[in-house]
């Protein structure tokens, strides 16, 4: 899986691409873990290039959400294509996260608060 990472104005943006399934969620989890271990506390996950997500991918996001809460970090999800948004909806995950339409609106959220 291709995972792009950028730091924009102090916010780490992680953008996985392709399928977020049983095979690829391991590498994503590892990339996220390393980034948070290295000190990232303001994190955006951009789903714009994700084809679909299965429960293996949801698990990675759930683990991240709990960790960011424990660390008093901030996590925003953005760019969800319809297949991703629908799986989040079915799993009841939408209320558990801050979700923004685009990367720009996600980043604006940090700018407004910091």
């Amino acid at each position, binding site marked *: 899986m291709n995972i792009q990472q950028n730091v924009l104005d102090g916010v780490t943006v992680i953008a996985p691409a392709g*399928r977020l*399934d*049983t*095979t690829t969620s391991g590498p994503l989890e590892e990339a996220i873990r390393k980034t948070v271990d290295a000190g990232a506390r303001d994190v955006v996950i951009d789903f714009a290039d994700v*084809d*679909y*997500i*299965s*429960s*293996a991918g*949801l*698990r990675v996001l*759930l*683990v991240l*959400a*709990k960790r960011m*809460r424990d660390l008093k970090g901030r996590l925003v999800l953005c760019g969800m294509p319809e*297949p991703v948004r*629908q*799986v989040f*909806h*079915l*799993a*009841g*995950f939408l209320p*558990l996260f801050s979700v923004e339409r685009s990367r720009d609106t996600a980043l604006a959220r940090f700018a407004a608060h910091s």
Partner: protein
Amino acid sequence: MPAGKHARFEADAAAIGQAAAALDGFCSSEQVPRDAIWPLQVALDEIVGNIVSHAAAGRAVPAFDVWFRRAGESIEIVVADDGPPFDPLERPAPDVTLPLDARQPGGLGIMLVKSLMDDVRYERTTRNVLTIRKRITPGGVPGGAETR
């Protein structure tokens, strides 16, 4: 033996990607519309992921078979494995209204399969046989859309 395009896999981690690739090939040759492909991809990932994790946990599932077929206005996928009897449909549905603190990973996979497919059936023969069906007619929007 079920009809359709057949593929057999060793129940190891590589099988998950191989099964996904087999589904891609089938959907491409059958010109399955895009909005029906991803629910099938998610469902197959859940089902095959379960089989492989059971095999990895030492409950012998040496191999499994998958059949892909078009049945009228639907796509059907049959997955058969040699593991001990296990009906995933009997698993209690997870509570998807719990707050973050109370959420545990797991249990969501089969719920997604049920939600995204139009029909899911389990049958125990000498094997575990799971059949999922997805309509590809214009009315066959992914299940759950109406609950939005």
